[in-house]
């Protein structure tokens, strides 16, 4: 019995020693960040959920990043240096994201971090950025906390946020005659926060408005009938929807037999009317849903937007530009512009350059607010409609609402953070 233990311990000890030596000897030669700063590419760590349920939303953003990178590098790069990505799968899991972000910073020696989709994942990466004093630019996540009470010097966001989204939808209801509202959103941070923002704001702009009921399905719900019958029983005029992705597709299909979309008017956040949702739903997408998207490929009809759409389609060979592609595209350009303005990749100087920076984007100028690092990025809103031009629903009466007037003021954020 004893003898066996000994030999195993022996092997184990030897193994650890060999591992230690082999790992350390190989690692020494990796490029140090500062040494040859002029010839080496500028390295950007990208974090997205490449596998798992969120993959279909992440792919368009990654493609957007790639299109921007190709354009920038063809034009000679930034400060004469090429941009380069190191892409990691965060598995839409905050624990994995922390490990991967650390690996990008410590082993890949990336100069900047970008990306993530899920709110909790972005908060996790933000913490790694703070600890390692690395600039992190969030491209999609919406949890308002990321740039308000949990914000710090090293985190920036080019996406909208839960507060802006909820308030914008409420604002659009200001002039409608409806007073009876029902809300349905998944029972987690995003759903809770965005509904809270809507309810608070709609009561402000329309004091007669009342919430006649609320549904809180779990994330990943597939059985929608109980929710649909409960909504119809409450007889609301308007249903505010934040159920998204595959869940929304299932919801639409299960709601049809009830004549749901004829009985209630639906207003929706969570980008359910964006192209990547419209294509799989095809002709099943109900008409007249007031919804939002980061971008729709047919609007605005400007030279910048057409150029982006063409570049994306040429690069990816896809038939249509999905709505989230632009977030990757803008993200990379924002960072490149800040580096250019700073004249260096030094983190502190790039942060200073990014604060207050205004970028011309395909959907118009976007400005990064200096104090909280939240871009004034809003979303496009429109009504779903079917036309002979496309086999899926598009938006009509499209307009872009930016964040100003909706986001928290700097004073409010200071109070949230306990600063003066």
């Amino acid at each position, binding site marked *: 019995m*004893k*003898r*066996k*233990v*000994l*030999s*195993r*311990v*022996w*092997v*184990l*000890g*030897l193994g*650890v*020693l060999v*591992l*230690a*030596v082999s*790992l*350390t000897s190989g*690692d*020494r030669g990796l490029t140090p960040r500062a040494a040859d700063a002029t010839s080496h590419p500028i390295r950007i760590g990208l974090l997205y959920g*490449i*596998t798992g349920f969120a993959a279909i939303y992440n792919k368009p953003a990654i493609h957007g990043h790639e299109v921007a990178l190709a354009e920038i590098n063809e034009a000679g790069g930034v400060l004469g240096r090429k941009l380069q990505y190191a*892409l*990691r*799968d965060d598995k839409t*899991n*905050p*624990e994995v994201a*922390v*490990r*991967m972000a*650390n*690996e990008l910073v*410590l*082993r890949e020696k990336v100069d900047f971090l970008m990306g993530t989709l899920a*709110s*909790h994942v972005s*908060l*996790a990466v*933000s*913490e*790694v950025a*703070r*600890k390692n004093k690395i600039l992190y630019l969030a491209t999609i996540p919406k*949890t308002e*906390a990321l740039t308000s009470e*949990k914000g710090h010097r090293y985190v920036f966001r080019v996406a909208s946020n839960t507060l802006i989204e909820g308030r914008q939808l409420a604002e659009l209801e200001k002039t409608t005659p409806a007073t009876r509202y029902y809300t349905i959103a998944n*029972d*987690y*941070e995003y759903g*809770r926060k965005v509904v809270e923002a809507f309810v608070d704001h709609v009561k402000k702009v329309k004091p007669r408005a009342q919430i006649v009921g609320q549904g809180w399905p779990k994330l990943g719900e597939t059985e929608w009938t109980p929710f649909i019958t409960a909504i119809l029983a409450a007889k609301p005029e308007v249903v505010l929807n934040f159920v998204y992705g595959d869940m929304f597709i299932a919801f639409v299909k299960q709601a049809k037999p009830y004549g749901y979309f004829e009985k209630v008017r639906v207003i929706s956040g969570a980008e359910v009317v964006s192209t990547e949702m419209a294509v799989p739903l095809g002709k099943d997408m109900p008409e007249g849903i007031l919804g939002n998207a980061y971008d729709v490929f047919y609007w605005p009809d400007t030279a910048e937007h057409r150029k982006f759409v063409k570049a994306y389609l040429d690069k990816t060979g896809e038939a249509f530009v999905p709505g989230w592609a632009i977030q990757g595209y803008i993200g990379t350009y924002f960072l490149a512009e800040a580096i250019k303005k700073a004249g260096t990749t030094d983190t502190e100087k790039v942060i200073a350059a990014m604060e207050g920076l205004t970028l011309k984007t395909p959907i118009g100028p976007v400005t990064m607010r200096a104090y909280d690092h939240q871009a004034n990025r809003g979303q496009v809103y429109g009504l779903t409609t079917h036309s002979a031009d496309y086999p899926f629903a598009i938006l009509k009466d499209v307009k872009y609402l930016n964040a100003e007037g909706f986001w928290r003021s700097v004073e409010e954020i200071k109070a949230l953070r306990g600063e003066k």
Partner: protein
Amino acid sequence: MRGTSLRPLWGWGLLALGLGGFPLLASEFYIRLATEILIMALFAMSFNLLLGYGGMLSFGHAGFYAVGAYTVAILMKKTSVPFFLAFPAAPAVTALVAAVTGYFCVRLRGFYFSILTLAFGQLIWGVIFKWSALTEGDDGIVGIRAPTFLTSSGGSYYFTLVLTAACIGLLWMIIESPFGRTLLAIRENTDRTQFIGVDVNRLRLLAFVLSATFAGVAGALFAPFNGSVFPTFALWTKSGEVVMMSILGGMHTFLGPAVGAAIMLSLDQMISVYTEYWPFVLGVILLVLVLFFPAGITGFVRVLARRESAGTRLA
């Protein structure tokens, strides 16, 4: 005889030298990876006290790991309790939770035990996920400020190493004690052990609580190391990870689960760097390991060692 009794000292010495000297040689990334491996090794070994020695397959062990991590996180972030008080509170709270859930679980055998542990594990996850006021829900608690001696990767590594080693030492003493031997007897033949007059449920509960407590320590180590805690720590997939680690490393060997933890984490990290098809590569590697090393890596090494010593005796 004297010659053989020196061999374990050599082995342990080498192990201590390797682990102790590691931060002096390795870069910060690998020190972090090693720290995470140490924590997961403790987590997996705590689990194996139940599986390998008690014959109890728990699918809710991650719940206790999460309780440990959240205890530290909540005490430090929400109530500003200093780390040196929050840290020991973690195993205490975990033991309490384990005593309550274990009271019900140990009454069941086999699959029924596994299912109930799964249910309790998910219950803990549900509480963490839903109780946003205390746990901040799915956003997790981020920005846990570790004390200054833990902020450097080296300091964090040595702190983890010392505590992990101490806990593994305690686990060894538990397994070698009469209690540990009785636990083996329960695993081998529960009915017979009961007939001898052993209070089986009481001992199983003790094993359950002890095992959970060490998982709580692992969680408490991970919280300041990671800087943030998330509900996913309590999810059944996390429980599944330690089951995999134990089986991969060898659940009938004392250090087997630790080896499993090291392999799983290293593979996961390394493969993800090189390909986005990491689940495929990882799956194939695990398939080969499970098919060709049914007793786990350490079980295989043991067979090799036995064959070798038999060979020298013949020659």
